[in-house]
């Protein structure tokens, strides 16, 4: 095996593979699955430490299709954030990769999503956003734009919920939007999201080829290929490579992560979006909202100083799951002391 075929752990890409997908041929979700595999492989994530969490939907099925050597939990519709948070508390060293859908997150799971952001559970949270409920056969979801048409002619009557905007306002430390068809951007974002300690949202537009792929649909492949407006070219440079990489010439921005890794952003036109500037992030989201002709993708907001839940809870190095009697039971004297108050 050549070095290029193996990662820092000596694992090959196939070691990050999962079961065969049962989704429709051409589904955007399968692209994201490949991107997750690519990212985990390149970042040298230990598969045994991976926890894959999801709710219910076509998108939520995908954790079975990547990193079979990780631990999966496909929970109930819209409630993955609580399950992921609980697992994360039990063992803070787990690398939690959450996959959800736009129905799973923006409708039934909106409450749990908001609260996981608020608590800053250390996890990657990918919304595979196709604007419809794929698994229940194509009803509009809450992330569909008002006035859009889907197969069969139905028109969506309600304004969309922009999950990135919600996340930014709730104080999320890592907010990105991407397109499943842009593997390069997705892989870099996923790698950076894994590195980020705290809740990392990637709202990834991921076309449903069966129910929402009309040529004029803003959640369809054709439209996206033409109207995807990248904020910047995203690259991720891990800590162990950071020393050896030369700065890319031209207009670039280097965003340092606390562990020594960094995100490199290079400009695609005269301006460059700085994700560490929350006002700039808000302006991007506002532009995205008003400009019906485009979708803006890239790293929208990043705050390296966000405090993850396990730190807020002061969890020690040894996972709660491994603590035993001697570490958990107060001694006899302490026990007697507790009872004393009740005599």
């Amino acid at each position: 095996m050549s070095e290029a075929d193996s990662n820092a752990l000596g694992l090959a890409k196939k070691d990050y593979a999962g079961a065969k997908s049962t989704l429709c041929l051409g589904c955007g979700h399968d692209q994201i699955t490949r991107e997750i595999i690519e990212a985990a492989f390149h970042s040298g994530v230990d598969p045994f430490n991976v926890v894959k969490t999801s709710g219910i939907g076509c998108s939520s099925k995908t954790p079975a299709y990547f990193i079979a050597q990780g631990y999966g939990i496909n929970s109930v519709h819209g409630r993955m954030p609580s399950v992921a948070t609980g697992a994360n508390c039990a063992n803070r060293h787990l690398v939690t990769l959450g996959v959800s859908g736009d129905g799973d997150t923006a409708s039934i799971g909106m409450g749990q999503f908001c609260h996981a952001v608020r608590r800053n559970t250390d996890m990657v949270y990918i919304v595979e956003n196709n604007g419809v409920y794929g698994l229940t056969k194509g009803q509009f979801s809450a992330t569909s734009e008002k006035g859009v048409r889907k197969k069969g002619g139905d028109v969506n009557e309600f304004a969309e919920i922009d999950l990135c905007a919600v996340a930014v306002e709730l104080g999320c430390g890592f907010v990105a939007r991407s397109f499943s068809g842009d593997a390069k951007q997705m892989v870099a974002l996923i790698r950076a999201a894994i590195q980020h300690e705290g809740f990392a949202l990637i709202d990834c537009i991921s076309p449903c080829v069966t129910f929402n792929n009309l040529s004029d649909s803003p959640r369809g492949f054709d439209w996206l290929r033409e109207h995807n407006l990248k904020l910047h070219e995203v690259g991720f440079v891990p800590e162990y490579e950071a020393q050896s990489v030369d700065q890319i010439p031209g207009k670039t921005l280097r965003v340092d992560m606390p562990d020594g890794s960094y995100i490199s952003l290079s400009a695609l036109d005269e301006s460059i979006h700085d994700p560490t500037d929350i006002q700039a992030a808000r302006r991007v989201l506002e532009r995205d909202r008003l400009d019906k002709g485009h979708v803006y993708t890239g790293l929208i907001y990043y705050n390296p100083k966000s405090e993850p839940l396990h730190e807020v809870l002061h969890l020690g190095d040894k996972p709660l799951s491994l603590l035993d009697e001697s570490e958990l039971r107060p001694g006899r004297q302490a026990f007697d002391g507790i009872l004393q108050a009740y005599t």
Partner: protein
Amino acid sequence: MSPTVVNDFTVTVATVNGSGSASSNTILAKTVFRMGVPVTPKNLFPSNIAGLPTWFLIRVSEKGYQARTGTHEVVIALNAETVAKDAASVRKGGVLIVDEKIAGGITRDDIAVHKVPFAELVKPFAPDPRLRKLLANMIYVGVATDLLGLDRETVMKVVADQFAGREKIVKLNQEVVKVGLEYSRDTFDAAKCPFKVESRDLTRDKLFIEGNAAAALGALMGGCTFVGWYPITPSSSVCEELIHLAKEHRVVGGDHRFAAVQAEDELASLGLVLGAGWAGARAMTATAGPGISLMAEFAGFGYYAEIPAVVMDIQRVGPSTGMPTRTQQCDVSSCLNLSHGDTGHIVLLPGGIDEIYEQSQQAFDLAERYQTPVFLLSDLDMGMNYWMAERFAYPERPFDRGKVLDAEQLAQVKAFARYKDVDGDGIPYRTLPGTHHALAPYFTRGSGHTETAAYTEDSDEYQKVVDRIKRKIDGSVRDTPAPIHEGDPDCDVGVLHYGSTRFAVEEARDMLAADGIATKAMRVRALPLHAEVVEFVQSCRVVYVVEQNRDGQMADIVRLKVPGSAGLIKKVLYYAGMPLSATTVVEQITADQREPSHV
């Protein structure tokens, strides 16, 4: 003058919610307890922060009976709104201590009426009317101390403990108690008060503790490391107390050996708990009926995906919001079968505070041994009131973490299928996320799965798993607390009960026996039912199932379990929201004994 009644009466304090009488009432009850006399206080409070009537019962019982009596021997009336009713409630020959200002309409001459100028007595101590109101409660502590013959030094010590650490407040309250006591001594003749507390030695080594505090302590000792919860009466104090204990006893060098997450709702509570349990923490939540309803979908997920979880349900009156501060045993059937599809959970039914302590440790062992949500059903009466309990034992046994395979064991066994019945007991093996072994990883799902945890819609594969889960849960009787037998096994009149109903039933059986009605009893402590319950029912001519709900939920569960028992099981029910009294049980059983109803 009526004959003196020693250590066998109830003191009822009638006040307004939010008036700060809780401390005074606790002080009175605890004083009796410290005098070595069994005592059971009960706070009958409304769902309101301030302004509605509330009653506090203090039952003094040398015999150790702990149920509500339904009678009021000594009443302390401070609420203008209810004073007429309160005065009328005093038993003939009883004593009424009443605020002079509201005593105008009282005309009873068959009781002793003691009018006390509360406001005037506390005036010198507090210019501030709010503080004056609070302190007024200490006046009746003093009056009661004098009339009932409470030990003065003990009262003062209990006051000091109640406000420990706040010296000025201790002194002030002690002074006011003294004023009440002296006023009573100067004005009334305590010798004429027929109700007396006399010191005994019956509470040594006993605890005086709320059920919810016992549950929290049980969870702490049982190794709970994760709590996800959402506040709801009457369960909140379980989690609050647990967090308090954990902060005290589980912080080492700045590291917390527990995690508590206040969730956004009860769906999230159970989701958090299942996530934590799946990843290997001993995790719990506590809630009440409305929360149980919200947890339904996740309960089925935990059952089918086989994930340990402990759910404590401190029951209150339903349906819907019901009467949130009143007590019932109304969630037995909903917890037993919580969720859609064929589900049947392990349900623990502690009867008494020491059992709450024991079972809230054991619940974690059972949850991990059987890899399933375990429901522990307490209720408002046990949970939020102080009770006398046997001193809790320090746990000697190690935790039972169930069938968990680590990397070393996997290397030895060389095979692992998450949902396979290897040992013939229906309980599969599991691995924890993060285990470094190629055999360990598996995919957990609430959709149809095979023995190897793969997705399936194959009929046989599906059935194999659900049939095994049923065997597994049925087999839990090996480890769940067995029912308790009481009385002569040859007797053919049975009384079956569980949970807090125990207190009324034990007293009722004594009363029935005194009336010539002999009974034997069985106290159920877990579901699924043990075989002994079947034998018990079959050995009886009639079985009275006593419980605090409208429909006789346990009676129906027993009927289904015991073939041919429909004709001999009779429902003795009380569901009005007050703690059950022995007389209620006696009346219903006696009536049926005289004139048997047909079922």
